[in-house]
């Protein structure tokens, strides 16, 4: 059974304090690893797709990386508007998506 585990469950940062969110996965025939941002009461918003180990993608203060066992979402000099829940999800060889439980990020000014 595919599994995706995110850590930590919650993370409090001061504005400007860089950190990383972890997503470890056990997936049969990984075809892609996604990161989403979810604001309270809203649907997840797509951030990145990573396809293979060693791949990196960046968007503003966010950078996502992928290894054979885990993915990291690095947040550089975060701002209060980066506060949200970040979800990772893995798609397997059968095109089924498995989500992690999410990391709730709170950035204080």
């Amino acid at each position, binding site marked *: 059974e595919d599994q995706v585990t995110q850590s930590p469950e919650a993370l409090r940062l001061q504005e400007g304090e860089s950190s990383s969110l972890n997503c470890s996965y056990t997936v049969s025939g990984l075809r*892609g690893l*996604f990161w*989403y941002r979810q604001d309270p*009461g*809203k*649907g*997840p*918003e*797509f951030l990145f*797709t990573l396809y293979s180990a060693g791949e990196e993608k960046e968007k503003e203060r966010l950078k996502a990386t992928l290894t054979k066992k885990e993915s990291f979402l690095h947040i550089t000099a975060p701002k209060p508007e980066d506060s949200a829940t970040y*979800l990772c*999800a893995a*798609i397997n060889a059968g*095109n*089924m*998506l498995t*989500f*992690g*439980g*999410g990391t*709730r990020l709170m950035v204080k000014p």
Partner: protein
Amino acid sequence: SQTIHQWPATLVQPVGSPLSLECTVEGTSNPNLYWYRQAAGRGLQLLFYSVGIGQISSEVPQNLSASRPQDRQFILSSKKLLLSDSGFYLCAWSDWGRSSYGYTFGSGTRLTVV
């Protein structure tokens, strides 16, 4: 561009009442469609998915059902709601294989069963 519409945004229903949530997608054809439920502070649980009209697969035995009467319409239903059906319901579509965006989600329906 593709858009996904989901309604209503919030719903308060008594126990034992019926449920109908609707989701429509625009700007694409033959999408894969999904219903997810998200409990407070938890990840997303896949409830149903559909690869075509009238084709529904259920991932979790439950009090809910789904239908796909048209190519870009997906409906989540229940004949009699339970308290445990409360949650945040999300519809999503995917054309994985033709795009790299994974799944695109609607804005969600907050269902409270009282």
